[in-house]
């Protein structure tokens, strides 16, 4: 029965001449529900980079980000029957990724507590100031840019998760305030407030850095 539907769907798509890349997220989801693995591959191709980038900026660990990004798509695949098209798929998948990332942070915290060496490590979630930069002269512009990116990434990583997530979604992933509010299941005012607060915290951290660097 599912194969019949799949064939029918493919036939309809061929008839309309619309390639997978032009179908909406919801159409691809429906096709995936009917057993079309190509449609799911299209969803993966569409969201793997944004989700990986979001998780990387949140966790500041590329390997972990890739792993959780794959886990996000696995969750989507096995829960696809329960997905409702009442809201945007991007909201749905970012919410899954966010929950996985928060769980990962908790695991890290437990591992840190259990580790003997963790007694001497700083909490990745604390808001203490990071180390001042290396004050040696920088060789060229690329290195300066790399250093600048690394410094910003570290500053983001020191933000508490409740500020880190919305500012990444807003300023790095480019989601709207409404979408972010839907992802975090918060009110619009709270979402805006947190983003503003996150920017203020980052400003303080980075201002301290640049003042130090300028002296």
């Amino acid at each position: 029965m599912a194969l019949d539907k799949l064939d029918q769907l493919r036939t309809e798509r061929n008839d309309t001449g619309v390639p997978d890349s032009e179908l909406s997220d919801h159409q691809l989801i429906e096709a995936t529900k009917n057993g079309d693995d190509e449609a799911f591959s299209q969803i993966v191709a569409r969201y793997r980079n944004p989700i990986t980038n979001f998780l990387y900026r949140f966790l500041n660990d590329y390997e972990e980000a890739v792993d959780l990004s794959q886990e996000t798509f696995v969750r989507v695949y096995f829960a696809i029957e329960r997905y409702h098209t009442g809201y945007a798929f991007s909201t749905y998948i970012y919410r899954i990724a966010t929950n996985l990332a928060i769980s990962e942070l908790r695991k890290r915290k437990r591992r840190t507590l259990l580790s003997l060496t963790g007694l001497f490590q700083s909490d990745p979630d604390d808001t203490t100031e990071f180390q001042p930069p290396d004050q040696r002269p920088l060789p060229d512009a690329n290195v300066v840019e790399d250093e600048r990116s690394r410094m910003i990434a570290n500053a983001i990583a020191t933000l508490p998760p409740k500020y880190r997530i919305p500012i990444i979604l807003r300023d790095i992933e480019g989601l709207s305030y409404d979408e972010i509010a839907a992802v975090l299941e918060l009110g619009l005012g709270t979402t805006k407030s947190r983003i503003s607060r996150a920017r203020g915290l980052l400003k303080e951290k980075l201002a301290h850095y640049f003042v130090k660097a300028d002296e």
Partner: protein
Amino acid sequence: MNRNNKEFGAEGEDHIGEMLAALPRVSAPADFEMHLKARIARRSTPSRPGFYSALKIAVPASLLAVVAGFLFFSGVVMPDLENVVTVAENEAASQPPITVSEQLPHSDFVASSASDPPDVSETNRAAIAPTPSDVRVAARSATRTANSPRRASPVLLTDANSGGGSRDMAVRVDRPVEQNSTTDDPPSMSTPDKIAPGSEPNSTVPVTDVLELLGVVVVYDGGWQVRSVDAVRAAARSGIKTGDVITALDGKQIGEGATLAAGTTVRTMTVKRGETSVIIALRN
């Protein structure tokens, strides 16, 4: 560096957004989808129940069985008196009867069946030592006080058949206890001298001896008040406790000096505990 200072001026917060947007984006690796499909395939395959999954069930079940067995045999979950009372009538019908009888202390060592004559000489008795349990019962009998309502003749429990079985079962009287013994008689192991000559099939047994066979030591105080309970006898297993007042056996009132016919089967015991009178089914 001056540019940096400028960025964090009055419009610093706006520039924060621009700086974040300008961060280089990372991409998923080229083999992302391949690994993803492999991960989905692994999740799709139902895991077979293996050795460790069986252990998850077997280990807790074994521990539970061990704990339950320990509690059962340690008596923690033995039914209390109230529970026994509620089912007393039903249990009375299902329990094997307890036959009350007496036998001379040495006769079980020389007679393998109840019909054997109690022709026991001192030599025979000396040659066959009593078991520790017999000695214990005899010693307890020997410590009775002179005003004890028990007769002077000691009563020993013996196994009915040499093949085994509960000590409380199928003990019978081969000879009647001498009824004329005085309470001043020194408590000692019975000898043939103290046995009334001749076996009488319809002889009687004092109720105190019957109760002792069941495992309680009693004194009469308007009723047979339990002074101690032998933990391994039927009375203890049935829930009789020190302080209970036994008023009847099998519904028959037992007063001071009451006797039962030898070979009587006792199924129930009426006990007064505090203000409550209950009927207890005796357990072997």
